[in-house]
């Protein structure tokens, strides 16, 4: 079973190849560089390194967001088309769940998040049980402040994982004090090997209907829906 994992949903570009549960190789960069230019060469290079041809792949796992809208689409366009062309299954894994794999040995709540600007975050909260991440709080787009208040009420230790941790570090400590665990840098980045592992455990998606998890409507659509509601109320 050869799995190719692709993550371009945030600043990290990650590619990994997993063979029968073993990592053959991975590529990870954490650079503000163009995913569209670099993804296919990275896949090509890694496949050559591990001496694998495209038709030897059995499954593709892709980080489906939340994250950068464009980044998520680059990953999904690539993964879906490749899976369709090779006639193999594709599985979309939450980018937050992938990141939460960094905390799978932690006994407590694991909170992974990405900054979504203006104090908002994309966040999910998990609890590892029997080597599986159980969802404590669904993935949401909410104010970090509101999330932290909920976590205080839960009175549990929380492991925070995020490439954007520096933005919220002080705020987290201020709200949660001793309950907050904030690990070192390498733990804060999603790892494509974990994505491959999650992809192995998840059931495949329908290639045609697999869509990004933006967690947010497009602005124009949100405004349009709001306008429709107002119209209805006004008569």
């Amino acid at each position: 079973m050869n799995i190719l994992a692709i993550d371009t949903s945030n600043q990290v570009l990650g590619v990994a190849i997993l063979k029968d549960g073993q990592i053959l190789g991975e590529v990870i960069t954490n650079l503000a560089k163009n995913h569209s230019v670099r993804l296919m060469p990275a896949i090509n290079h890694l496949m050559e390194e591990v001496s694998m041809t495209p038709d030897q792949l059995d499954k593709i796992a892709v980080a489906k967001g939340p994250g950068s809208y464009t980044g998520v689409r680059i990953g999904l366009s690539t993964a879906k088309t490749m899976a369709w062309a090779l006639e193999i299954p594709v599985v979309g894994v939450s980018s937050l769940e992938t990141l939460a794999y960094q905390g799978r040995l932690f006994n407590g709540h694991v909170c992974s998040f990405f900054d979504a600007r203006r104090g908002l975050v994309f966040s999910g909260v998990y609890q590892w049980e029997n080597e599986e991440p159980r969802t404590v709080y669904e993935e949401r787009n909410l104010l970090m402040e509101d999330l932290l208040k909920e976590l205080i009420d839960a009175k549990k230790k929380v492991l925070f994982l995020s490439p954007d941790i520096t933005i919220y570090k002080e705020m987290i400590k201020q709200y949660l004090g001793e309950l907050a665990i904030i690990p070192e840098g390498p733990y804060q980045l999603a790892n494509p090997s974990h994505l491959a592992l999650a992809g192995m455990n998840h059931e495949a998606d329908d290639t045609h209907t697999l869509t990004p998890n933006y967690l947010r409507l497009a602005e124009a659509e949100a405004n349009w829906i709001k306008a429709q509601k107002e119209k209805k109320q006004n008569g």
Partner: protein
Amino acid sequence: MGEFKMKNDINILGIETSCDETAVAIVKNGREIISNVVASQIESHKRFGGVVPEIASRHHVEQMTIVLEEAISKSKLDWDDIDAVAVTEGPGLVGALLVGVNSAKALAFAKQKPLIGVHHIAGHIYANRLVSEFQFPMLALIVSGGHTELVLMKEHGNYEVIGETRDDAAGEAYDKVARMLKLPYPGGPQIDRLAAMGEETIDFPRAWLEDDSYDFSFSGLKSAVINKIHNAKQRGEQLKDEDIAASFQASVIDVLTKKTVRAAKEFNVKQVIVAGGVAANKALRAELETQFKTLEIPLVIPPLKLCTDNAAMIAAAGAISYEQGKRSGLDLNANASLVLK
């Protein structure tokens, strides 16, 4: 399988996602459409009165593999019969282009096929080759929502832009005037329809620019139309929408036709072709046909279906690049402001 493919046939699969159509097509030898599938998003964008880039990008991701599958299954070809994957790399909406480019790269990699990046305007030009073979030197008038250009071609794959718009594209002016007249989106065909029922009662300006220039400018015309409507309203004057449409359209067509005719004469071209969405405009077609009939220069305008964005035109342009040995690498990127050369 492979029964439809002769030994020397070249089949190119084309992908186009530069705006609001997700399109995939397969073209044989740059001239013959084997399959041509277009998923239009127009119904989704209508409610916003124009194409919303983020929403267009989202639809492309949802549609891409579905459209690919339909194009392949309709073609009845095997992957062995496909020689290369061509894709629009620009210009266009960057988020929309990215979906096509990355899908094309994934496809080329998965099936180990050559990859060819295509300029969207080259595609519009080559839509005409699906109708009749090119005669060089050739002049192409490209008019669409995003473009107004005159391109001189002396041989295949060689483009010389001799004139382009300095502000709005012709199609853009159409859309803005349509909005002023409260016509539903897309406005171009609506104005064409209204104009046919009206008369040129208002003398709107024509921007000829410098004597020797083949460039265009439509922002002055657009402002003149807006001012005319405003002033009439203030004075309580009654203007017929049909006449506004007819007068506006007359100005656009006058400039487009005269500049095209002058260029055709100066460069002694053997053929004139028209491309882009506005090529569907009935009044423009009629005026160009009249002019070039008199000049005895063959005029080619593609059928309606090939005027608007499609992937057959991308595959057709890609076929020439393929024959000329042009290839793109897996680092191919979307380029929103790609230059035609």
